[in-house]
């Protein structure tokens, strides 16, 4: 059974002006168990609203959302849904409840009525999983942004969820903090098979996903493998997103007639593709000065 599934999901914020304006329009998606999915979109594209549908923080105005087979609109199943899908939000300060790290990590299991001894093992295990075991007795406000987010992730892991949704969880972090958080979720995916849904507008974060969903104006605009989607430079630009620098470079060269593939995303691939293309052009040129190649 798929982890998450939406069917003709529509949503409008009831209290907002311009009533009836749909933030999400008839979205049909499935997220496979154990995958990493990145959801990309500019501010206001509806991506965060979509994320909040995945654990019943928001309920559909139309259509259905299923989490591991549970209908999120079913109030009786609410705890089951929330236990399965953990959320990590943008602002690290506003999701830490307790003033000692281990107490915070224990918050969810406490709510679930897990016996005391098991809470202890879950907390220790969760802190170890995010590499923060040495900080168990710290006060959260003394930690860096990246460390706080890892505590928030640990707090979610202690629920033993099957899926973690990161709602722009790296937007307020510096590059080091961002790398640490991404490394942590990738490891959780690899080692524990946790399904990861990342909401982001950072292209480099989307690169490591198995699948990329691009949102625009409440609709799924593009959906596919990152390598495929990054090649659509102009379409991305049109909706306020940008492709990685490497792809943009290749694209600008292509427009000058140089035959390079847009699929060369990494720095190595990109440099290799450019060298190969220049070499090929030289070979085909009717007569040109000889150029020496050291390696290729």
């Amino acid at each position, binding site marked *: 059974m798929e982890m998450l599934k939406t069917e003709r999901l529509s949503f409008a914020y009831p209290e907002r002006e311009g009533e009836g304006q749909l933030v999400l329009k008839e979205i049909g998606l499935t997220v496979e168990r154990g995958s990493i999915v990145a959801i990309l979109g500019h501010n206001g594209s509806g991506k965060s609203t979509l994320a909040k549908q995945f*654990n019943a*923080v928001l309920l559909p105005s139309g259509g259905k959302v299923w989490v591991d087979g549970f209908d999120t609109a079913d109030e009786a199943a609410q*705890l089951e849904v*929330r*236990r399965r899908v*953990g*959320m990590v*939000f943008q*602002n690290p*300060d*506003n*999701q*830490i*409840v*307790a*003033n*000692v790290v*281990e*107490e915070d990590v*224990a*918050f*969810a*299991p*406490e*709510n*679930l*009525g*897990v*016996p*005391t001894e098991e*809470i*202890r093992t879950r*907390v220790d295990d969760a802190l170890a999983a995010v590499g923060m075991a040495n900080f168990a*007795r710290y*006060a*959260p*406000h003394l930690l860096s942004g990246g460390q706080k987010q890892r505590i928030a992730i640990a*707090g*979610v892991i202690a*629920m033993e969820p099957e899926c973690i949704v990161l709602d722009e969880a790296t937007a307020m972090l510096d590059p080091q903090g961002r790398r640490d958080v991404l490394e942590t979720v990738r490891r959780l995916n690899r080692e524990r098979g946790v399904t990861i849904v990342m909401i982001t507008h950072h292209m480099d974060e989307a690169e490591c996903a198995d699948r990329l969903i691009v949102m625009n104006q409440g609709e799924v605009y593009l959906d596919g493998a990152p390598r495929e989607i990054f090649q659509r430079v102009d379409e991305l630009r049109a909706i306020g997103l940008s492709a990685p620098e490497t792809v943009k470079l290749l694209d600008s060269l292509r427009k000058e007639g140089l035959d390079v593939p847009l699929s060369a995303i990494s720095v190595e691939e990109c440099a290799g593709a450019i060298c190969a293309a220049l070499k090929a052009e030289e070979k085909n040129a009717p007569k040109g000065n000889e150029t020496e190649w050291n390696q290729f």
Partner: protein
Amino acid sequence: MLKDITLGQYFPGNTLAHRLDPRTKLMMVVLYIVALFCAKGFLSYGLMALFLLLCVRISKVGFRALVRGMKPLILILIFTAVLNMFYTPGRAIASFWVFTLTVEGVWAAVFMVIRIALLIMGTFLMTYTTSPIALTDAIENLLGPLKRLRVPVHELAMMMSIALRFIPTLIEEADKIMSAQKARGADFETGNLLRRAKAMAPVLVPLFISAFRRADELATAMECRCYHGGEGRTKLHVLRYQKRDLFCLVTMALVMIGAVILGSLGY
């Protein structure tokens, strides 16, 4: 300047005072306060002061830290002292206009200052040696029986612990907002009281707005982590009384009885 507030600060340690069950400490403080209000003369106050001194030594909290914590309350101390001095009827020493200084007044002022100082230091000793979360746990636990009377004990305790958690965050934020407004030429340091109070609006408005936003986001985050009130909740740290708790409570009770007897005899 906001960072100087030490109220409710916790100094981690591993002394007897730190290891005591927070409920024991809370009850001791209550007994101590009761005893203080029964004390009358030098002997009973001396006993109370001695006992506090002993506790301070055991806890290894620096005496200076305790006194520093009292700084913000000095104004209140002086105010009560002056009020007592002039408004206690008795033998007049000096008088001017409507004020009369009396011998009884002076004594009353001295004892009042000692009483408040001991009370504050006693309470601070508890907050210095008890983590806020343990303290809220203790309050929730001790007030537990009130749940039957439909008093929302768990909710109150949760609110308290969240408030404690956010104090450093909000202080930091207030500092940041003040710096930002200073960078736009706001002046918090000069002018009379009214002007300074007015100058705080650019700090308080954003601070409140951000506090509401934080509260909103925190509530969502708590819901996401399956929070649904106190029902069926378990705890990572379960409070358990030890022998030492009984010992300390009995000692405290004896000291209190001593103070009450001495006080009722007028010493």
